[in-house]
């Protein structure tokens, strides 16, 4: 405890307390205004967020490397343990894939022939940018990750992000050297999809759970467990036919999809550089429009 002898001290103490209370109210007010401006979609808020993220990106990049190597070691050990059974499975799968390859080759030839006959304008093949995941921001409220590539690498808002299993999400914010990817499972994620076999169109809507829902399915649509869901390419922002997941449960109106992407092993992802010339203006993104039913 300080001594409160001198008259200056006696006067200064209440003033100090008053100033602190004032600062508290001011700062809480500022914090709440940030929320309000953010909700209103102020570009200042977005720039502020991106500046901070960009500044932290190199640090996160550095820190996440040992974590990644440690998990690689764990994975290695796990694989060694399962080597035998894994090999049997892989042999089976290889066999099956070889048959598929033959079919695919044949179909590819057929397709090219048909396209030539019809003068079909094919979708442009997307290029891609590979980036490392440096931040997993999947807290209790949002599902997103930070990646090491940004605007200077050619990453743009709205681009699809995939890994070897399928679609992961799409880019919602780009800084100079980092970008934020909104995962399929986020509350605000909306992806135009089709049921692969029946070509029924729907929207895949995340709700922060591991398995997003299919919404806007046509009435009496017949969907069954095990149906594959792929992107439809509608809206021109995502390439058509990217694998997303399979239907795992039908519960009344709610159809749940288990994504192929494995969230906890996301280490490297690819950002697909695919934008149709006639695509929507970049400001119009369904992702940020908020959830709707």
């Amino acid at each position, binding site marked *: 405890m300080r001594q409160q002898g001198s008259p200056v001290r006696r006067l200064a103490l209440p003033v100090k307390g008053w100033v602190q209370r004032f600062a508290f109210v001011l*700062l809480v007010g500022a914090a709440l205004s940030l*929320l309000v401006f953010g909700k209103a979609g102020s570009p200042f808020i977005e720039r502020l*967020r991106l500046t901070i993220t960009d500044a*932290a990106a190199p640090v996160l990049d550095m820190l996440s490397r040992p974590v990644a190597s440690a998990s690689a070691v*764990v994975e290695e050990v796990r694989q060694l343990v399962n080597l035998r059974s894994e090999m049997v499975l892989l042999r089976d799968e290889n066999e099956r894939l070889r048959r598929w390859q033959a079919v695919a080759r044949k179909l590819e030839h057929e397709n090219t022939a048909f396209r030539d006959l019809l003068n079909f304008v094919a979708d442009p093949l997307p290029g891609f940018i590979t980036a490392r995941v440096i*931040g*997993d*921001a999947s807290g*209790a409220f949002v599902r997103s990750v930070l990646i090491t590539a940004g605007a200077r690498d050619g990453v743009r808002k709205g681009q699809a992000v995939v890994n070897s299993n399928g679609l992961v999400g799409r880019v919602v914010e780009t800084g100079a050297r980092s970008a*934020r990817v909104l995962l399929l499972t986020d509350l605000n994620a909306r992806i135009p999809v089709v049921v692969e076999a029946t070509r029924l169109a729907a929207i895949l809507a995340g709700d922060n759970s591991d398995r997003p829902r299919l919404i806007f399915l046509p009435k009496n649509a017949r969907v069954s467990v095990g149906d594959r869901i792929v992107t439809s390419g509608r809206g021109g922002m995502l390439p058509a036919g990217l694998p997303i997941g399979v239907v795992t449960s039908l519960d009344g109106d709610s159809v749940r999809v288990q994504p192929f992407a494995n969230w906890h092993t996301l280490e490297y992802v690819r950002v697909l550089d695919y934008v149709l010339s006639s695509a929507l203006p970049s400001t119009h993104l369904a992702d940020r429009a908020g959830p709707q039913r």
Partner: protein
Amino acid sequence: MNVILLRRLERGIRSLTPFVTTLALVLLGTLPLPLPGFATVMPWLTLMAVYYWSIYRPDLLPLVATFLLGLVQDSLSGTPLGLNVSVLLVVQGVVVSQRRFFHGKTFLVEWWGFMLVAPGAALAAWVLVSLYFGVLVAPQPLGIQLLLSIALYPCLAWLFARAQHHLLRST
């Protein structure tokens, strides 16, 4: 002269301990960990840090510092900008006003205080996020996060106490 200057500099750097430890926890909390589903229920590390330092060294963690820490956390974790800022500020305000109560008490009292503060903070965050997105966000992950935070608080508080003992004894 130089010695005095150096000592002052050293003391200045030491007095950054609360800010730096909290910032480190913000960064740690966003690293991608290879544990399935863990990111969703990652304990609220910043809340623990702000709670601890608000009790023991509020002079070294001014409100502006908390504001900045919340800003960094919101930016990195993709939560609405201002969410962690406002919740952490209010937590700090409440704890600092009650800190005399904790002085000279055992650790159990401090932990018990955290058990009261953390659910309040989580509820405030949940209400703000639900208002922001205009939809009731699923509360289960938040609940698990809360329980983990309470369970882990003693470990973190021990680490903070070590840091305080070694780095801030003289400041």
